[in-house]
């Protein structure tokens, strides 16, 4: 069992786990023909069959059953805050499966020139009363039972009265904010706490205006909407759900990373000295001190940030996103590519932090402006 635990601890190092997740992601949600070919060749499309569902559920259950034997992981897993996150892992996969199963079934029908399943009226119609109401009533009773057992079995995670001078260690946000908390590690508070959540909300609201593809309205399908689905699932699965899982299971005292089977050592030492881009350039590269003028000091950061948002849109419009540019026109494409670049800035900033110990590209603490 020890080698297995060590293997999991190594595998779940967030640097490694996120890298693996990001690079294997397009094989699960192929966004072009090349990935699609490999998706078939590696039989990853079996994930959306009934056998795939059973295999994944059994695999996950086994992992948690084995995991609960371990004293360290039991503490994390059975904490009343975290039990729902274990459920969330199962539920996210299940609902992903429900839609992707229908999508792959419809893809098969469409490729043979037939209409999707939902096109035909079902022969057997059911009545609202009593059929639907009956199902709803049963669901309601089951939910009530679950909530009753849950509320009796798990104590509410209440703590001592709040004391501004004592912050629990680690201090975790409610589970639905753990993605934001993870983002806050890499960005300035006003960016990660105010600007990005606003962009996320408005970005989600903008989706129906950007994605006008009529394919798949009223039924699930993947083939003709693979770019749209891939981009959305990347933001949802990798940059939201995975960050919640990392925040729940892998963040420990002093907000250090810990493997699921690793002892939460308060004195775990991870020597890292983060420096700003201006310090890397002026002190390490040029060997001169930091210039006193703020704009001169941060000019390279401004070049990088503005370059990122000014160079990539036209570049992408001429290459990979050419079709989308032609579909959406100047304004629509501008909004779309801005949202896309904002989304990708999170993993980019994470890697800059992990590889170069970079704190901020632009750092003007004098005016609370850091990117």
């Amino acid at each position, binding site marked *: 069992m020890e080698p297995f635990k060590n293997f999991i601890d190594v595998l779940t190092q967030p640097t490694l786990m996120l890298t693996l997740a990001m690079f294997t992601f397009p094989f699960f949600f192929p966004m072009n023909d090349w990935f699609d070919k490999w998706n078939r060749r590696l039989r990853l499309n079996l994930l959306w069959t009934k056998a795939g569902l059973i295999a994944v559920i059994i695999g996950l259950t086994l992992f948690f059953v084995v995991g609960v034997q371990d004293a360290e992981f039991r503490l994390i897993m059975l904490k009343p805050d975290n039990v729902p996150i274990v459920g969330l892992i199962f539920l996210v996969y299940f609902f992903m499966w429900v839609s992707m199963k229908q999508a792959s079934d419809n893809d098969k029908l469409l490729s043979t020139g037939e209409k999707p399943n939902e096109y035909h009226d079902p022969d057997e119609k059911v009545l609202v009363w009593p059929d639907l109401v009956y199902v709803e009533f049963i669901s309601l009773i089951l939910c009530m039972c679950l909530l009753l057992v849950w509320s009796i079995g798990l104590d509410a995670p209440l703590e001592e009265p709040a004391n*501004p001078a004592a*912050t629990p260690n680690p*201090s975790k946000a409610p589970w639905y904010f753990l993605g934001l908390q993870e983002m806050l590690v890499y960005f300035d508070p006003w960016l990660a706490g105010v600007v990005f959540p606003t962009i996320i909300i408005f970005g989600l609201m903008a989706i129906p205006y950007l994605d006008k593809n009529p394919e798949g309205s009223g039924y699930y399908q993947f083939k003709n909407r693979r770019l749209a689905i891939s981009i959305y699932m990347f933001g949802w699965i990798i940059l939201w759900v995975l960050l919640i899982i990392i925040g729940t299971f892998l963040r420990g005292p002093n*907000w250090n990373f810990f493997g699921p089977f690793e002892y939460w050592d308060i004195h775990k030492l991870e020597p890292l*000295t983060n420096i700003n881009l201006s310090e890397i350039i002026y002190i390490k590269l040029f060997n001169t001190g930091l210039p006193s003028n703020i704009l001169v000091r941060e000019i390279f950061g401004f070049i990088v940030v503005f370059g990122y948002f000014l160079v990539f849109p036209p570049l992408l419009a001429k290459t990979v996103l050419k079709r989308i540019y032609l579909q959406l026109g100047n304004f629509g494409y501008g909004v779309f590519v801005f949202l896309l670049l904002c989304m990708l800035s999170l993993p980019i900033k994470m890697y800059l932090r992990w590889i170069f110990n970079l704190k901020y590209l632009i750092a003007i603490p004098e005016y609370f402006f850091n990117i």
Partner: protein
Amino acid sequence: MPAEAEQPLQEKKSSQQATASVGEGTIKEKVQRRSFISWLAVAWVAFAAATGGFFTMILRIFFPNVLFEPPQSFKIGPPDEYEIGLVDIRWQAKFGTWIIRDSEGIYALSTVCTHLGCTPNWLENESKFKCPCHGSGFRRSGINFEGPAPRPLERYRIVMADDGQILIDKSKKFQYEKGQWSDPEAFLVV
């Protein structure tokens, strides 16, 4: 043809007049045009007064009669109570201040993380302040060196009182990035 067409038109007119006169009669009895405007003004004034009073009362909440907060300036005893090379956390809970004495003197650090405002912990073995919320780390001096904190911890005004005790004044802060740490009141030479 035209005679036929006129007939219903006239009928329509007369019926319209009839309804209009009935309508005017009922309105006349209730409200007139001038009094309507003055009633409207009364209503708006009443609404504005009620809303204004409501918001005044809400504003009043921000200025309570009694403040159950520790005072902004306080005395922490004579300098020889503080050992050289130690970070003193005895005032952390009550006043939100760390007192640090090095070979040159004493300074008072704020316990508020400059990233998002949690209270970091002093880790003696690692010789650093480490924030449990997002992992920001600060050296003994208050300089930020790890995690996302954008600027060093703030220092409070520290002076000697007349009775030989150290006086900390939290209403005056000194920020490193503004070059204020060299201010004579940011550091107590002992």
